[in-house]
């Protein structure tokens, strides 16, 4: 009895920052209803308190996470290896940006719950990274999904938001079922739900990698998690939901599920050789490489080609996020087999961080540049932004340049690393993949630069005076993202050496 208590205590120690986040979630859920009258009216400015509370929570979680030590070898439900800590840092940092973006997006009455949902989602992502057990992993994934439904619906309850939420809800459940199906096959093939034990089963040789059950499980996991990555053909919800949901929710959806999906794939599609830590010898089951290759190519092309056709900025960014998922999947296909300097996984992790700052930055500007009477929806709403709000136009251009992959922005280094990893793997298929990545980067330039062109070369459509006060939280978030986007180009070595130490 005492021993199991100790085990539980040890396990909680590993996920203390997540415990903090969840405690805060409970607190908000408990307290928020009491602060809202029965008719749904809340004191003016209540949302600021929820915002500060969320930031404080993230800060405390970050502080605890900063002092945490790596514990890669456990048999318990959680691990805390380098990847866990990396993902935790990434989610907490981008989580702060998301809190800032969401600050004024929900009205006072619903702000509390929606902030709590955001914190829960962030905790879920961290738990995915920390999970050492199939069941724990699945629960963590659901801890992301279920608050997401609420998060989509809470800030807005009009018909498009309802439609978007419903679509997301149905398709998300569908994908969760597929993931669960895959996990059950994995369990069937290995006889255990402990990920460490599953890895050891693969590492000890034998026929496990060639087991048909494992192959089926792999495909199911890729397909189910592909929904979160917005991998084609599991991406369909993205444009509709981005269009219907509040911009802050769209920003969250463009980034956070991708982190969860990629980390879950890194944890699940595992290794064939014994290693010190799980990532060091990460290698995909051979039969799945082809599937992933085709998915990556389809995702890149569909995302970019569809984005070309869009006139709605939100749909355009949705397809852009699809295409970026495709780029990152290139890293997954290459796996650990890149060059000495750049492996596919390290390129993927670097790109993940870069993608986070640049896409959230773009959303931050879209939120901040909204007019008093209407949000930024179509490309026409961006027309002439350089004249009405020159600083914002400039900053958004930086993010768009980064999304295109042009220097001097971090997006360039991110794409370059992926390209370099794929090219230096040296096989014909990986070099073809690298070339297709290049072609897609060029396709992407088309619509990103078109957005910049619209901002700088066209006249503003609506010339009426705008009396909306400055959207300060979003501007702060944009400034932070700008710092990241430019900083990760000029001084990438801190993050890069950290990632290298994870995977090597």
């Amino acid at each position, binding site marked *: 009895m005492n021993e199991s208590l100790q085990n539980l205590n040890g396990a909680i120690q590993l996920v203390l920052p997540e415990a903090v986040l969840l405690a805060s979630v409970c607190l908000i859920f408990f307290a928020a209803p009491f602060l809202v009258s029965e008719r749904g009216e809340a004191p003016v400015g209540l949302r600021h308190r929820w915002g500060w509370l969320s930031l404080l929570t993230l800060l405390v979680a970050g502080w605890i996470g900063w002092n945490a030590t790596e514990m890669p070898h456990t048999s318990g439900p959680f691990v805390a290896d380098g990847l866990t800590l990396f993902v935790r840092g990434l989610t907490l940092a981008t989580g702060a940006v998301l809190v800032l973006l969401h600050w004024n997006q929900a009205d006072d009455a619903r702000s509390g719950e929606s902030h709590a949902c955001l914190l829960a989602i962030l905790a879920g992502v961290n738990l995915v990274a920390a999970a050492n057990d199939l069941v724990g992993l699945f629960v963590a994934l659901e801890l992301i999904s279920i608050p997401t439904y609420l998060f989509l619906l809470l800030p807005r309850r009009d018909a498009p938001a309802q439609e978007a939420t*419903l*679509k997301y809800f*149905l*398709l998300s459940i*569908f*994908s969760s079922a*597929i993931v669960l199906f895959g996990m059950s096959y994995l369990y069937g093939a290995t006889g255990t739900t402990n990920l460490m034990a599953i890895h050891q089963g693969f590492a000890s040789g034998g026929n496990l990698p*060639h087991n*048909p059950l494992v*192959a*089926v499980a*792999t*495909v*199911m996991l*890729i*397909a189910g998690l592909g*929904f979160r990555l917005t991998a*084609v*053909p*599991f991406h*369909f*919800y993205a*444009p*509709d939901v981005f269009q219907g949901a509040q911009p802050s929710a769209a920003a969250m959806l463009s980034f956070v599920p991708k982190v969860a999906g990629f980390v879950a794939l890194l944890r699940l599609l595992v290794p064939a050789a014994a290693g010190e830590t799980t990532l060091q010898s990460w290698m995909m089951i051979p*039969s*799945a490489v*082809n*599937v992933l290759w*085709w*998915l990556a190519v389809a995702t890149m*092309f*569909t995302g*970019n*080609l*569809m984005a*070309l*056709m869009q006139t709605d900025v939100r749909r355009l960014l949705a397809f852009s996020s699809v295409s970026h998922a495709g780029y990152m999947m290139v890293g997954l296909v290459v796996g650990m087999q890149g060059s000495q300097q750049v492996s596919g996984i390290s390129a993927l992790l670097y790109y993940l961080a870069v993608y986070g700052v640049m896409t959230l930055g773009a959303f931050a500007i879209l939120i901040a540049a909204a007019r008093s009477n209407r949000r930024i929806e179509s490309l026409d709403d961006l027309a002439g932004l350089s004249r009405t709000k020159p600083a914002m136009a400039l900053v958004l251009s930086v993010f768009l340049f980064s999304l295109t992959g042009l220097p001097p922005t971090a997006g360039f280094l991110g794409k370059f690393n992926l390209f370099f990893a794929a090219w230096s793997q040296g096989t014909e298929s990986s070099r073809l993949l690298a070339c297709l990545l290049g072609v897609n980067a060029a*396709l992407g330039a*088309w619509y990103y630069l078109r957005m910049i062109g619209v901002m700088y070369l066209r006249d503003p459509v609506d010339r009426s005076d705008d009396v909306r006060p400055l959207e300060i939280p979003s501007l702060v978030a944009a400034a932070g993202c700008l710092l990241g986007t430019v900083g990760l180009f000029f001084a990438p070595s801190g993050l890069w050496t950290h990632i290298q130490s994870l995977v090597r």
Partner: protein
Amino acid sequence: MFDWLKPNDVLWLIPAAPLLACLWIVVVGHVVRRQYAHRPVVVAIAISTALSYHLLLNVVPTGFVERDHGAHAETAAAHEHAEHVDSDTPADAEHPDVPEAHTHAADASGPTAISTTLYEWIRIGSEASPTLSIPVKLRADAMTALMLVMVTTVSLLVAVFASGYMKGDPGYPRFFASIALFVFSMCMLVLAGNFLLMFVFWEAVGLCSYLLIGFWFKKPSAAAAAKKAFVVNRIGDFGFILGVFLIWVTFDTLDFDVLFANPLAIRAIVSQQPEIFTFICMLLFVGAIGKSAQFPLHVWLPDAMEGPTPVSALIHAATMVTAGVYLVARCTPFFILAPKAQMFVAGIGAVTALIAAITALTQYDLKRVLAYSTVSQLGYMFMALGAAGAGTNLATLAVTFAMFHMFTHAFFKAVLFLSAGSVMHSMGDVIDMRRFSGLRSVLPITHITFLAGALALAGFPLLSGFWSKDEILSIVFEATKGTQLHSIKVMFPFTNYHWVIEFTTGTYYTLILGVGLLASLMTAFYTFRAYFMTFWGEQKFPEEAGHHPHDAPPAMAIPLLILGVAALIVGGIAGPTHLYGNYLAQTPGLPAGDHLQPNMLMMGISSVLAILGIGLAYVCYVATPAIARDMKSSMSPLHAFSQSGLMLDYLYLRFVVLPLRLLAQIAEFFDRWVIDVIVDCFGFVPGLFGAILRPIHSGYVQNYAMVMLIGLVVCLVSVLRVLAGTL
């Protein structure tokens, strides 16, 4: 310790001061206090000037004392100096004020150079032994110090002059920013410690020249002149960079200290590839031809007079155009190994001197006369540099005399241009000499300064130009004693017939000497033709001048007077006393040479020619102006030929520009109707695919789920098929 009095500690400040002034104007001075934009520039150049004199006095340990070649005392002194510099190195490292200051003395056995590495610009390979390393290294020796003194002094005076001349121009801050940028670039060009850095600033001065020629860019002729200067210079620069590549391929380094202070390595290469230096020197000389406006690339310089007159004085007469002379002088250790290249240099110099002098005879634009005279005088300098082709023992003297003529020329040509500017200023920007005359009494100061410059340029006895030109003629005279036999084989294409021209070095240089003497007669004539046409005769003003033309204000007059005095006496002070020569001989890499006794024959002939030229001009343009008119009408084809610059511009237009333009039109047609159409097709394809993909994004959630399911099944089937294959 950082020591303000030690030259290598302050070396970086010489270019840094004007650069900071330039940045200051661009950022701040462009907006506030626009009419005072000249102040930071003048102050910065004054700092550079002071430091240059400081450098001049300290860079060479023995100063202006004659250098005794091979004597042990000298070597020991140099050793001491080297140790002295070395002992300071650790102290420098402690003190971070100078960024990464590394000082060391090169070539301890001969004259020394000081250097400071500011920053490693390019490094390929390991840190210890890089394959290619291009540091931003400032290096100064005797030649550098003399160049710097000349550049900064003239720049300072011209900047002061320009503060009056450019007053009221809407681009006033822009002008001074460009001037500061130019002074920075020119100092860096002179201080550069390796060929690549030199090339970079070679281009940078070209850029400044472009900016300043096209200063009044709204005037089509100015824009065209700027473009012409830039494009013509590109041709020369192409040769220069090829030369730099060849040096790199041959030596694996571009560092001056390593290249010039190492005769053994050079000799080893000569024994392997005897002709390599001829190629290197010819390519470097192509660069010099472009920058220093030598035939056939001199056509840009007269057009460059479209720029403001202070620019003409500073960049297109005194400093930038002498960069080619500096380059050839700097590369003397290479050129002495390539006598053929040197003879070529002398030949080009002579041809240029002659052509430009002929052209200058008939120009009516005062500034164009001076421009052609600049071209002609630069030709003289190259003539001197090439004279060493007759024997290595002449090399040091050749360099000395060329550099000395450059030195005196800088002063008297600057004063001539500035005086012309002063004339232009009072005549309402009219510069055609047919439209004004008799300005003696109206512009007394300008008249005096112009006369001083003209006398010096004409080589009037005992004035600056006399000493320096006489030295050039006497070194060419020395060269006529060469006896080596040369032959040129002229092949006629498609036939077996060929024609061998045989001549000795002596004959060749005799020819050049003849050209030099003829050109010196013409120099005196055209200079005083311009002088008499402008300042003598009946008083006449163009209507642009208004009723009361006024002489130069103090800001213009003071630099004019200083330069005028300098033009008269600087040659006499530094030339016959051997001050300049002895100092320059301390440059590392210059071979030992003997002294040249003053050549009384040449002195006599050139004095006679100068006075004869002045007299002829007086007769033709003052005493009996009818002579000039008659000559013009009786020899009108020749007159037209001379006035058009020997029709070179026309020939270029016909045989270079028009064919290239035709080619450009063909290329444009191809680009628009072939390349563009192909690109448009490529652009069409993604849209097509997008249109195909679009319908499946229908918005119906059941469709989405269906497609997801199909995707899953396809994936599963493909994996299982692969698996079935392997089992």
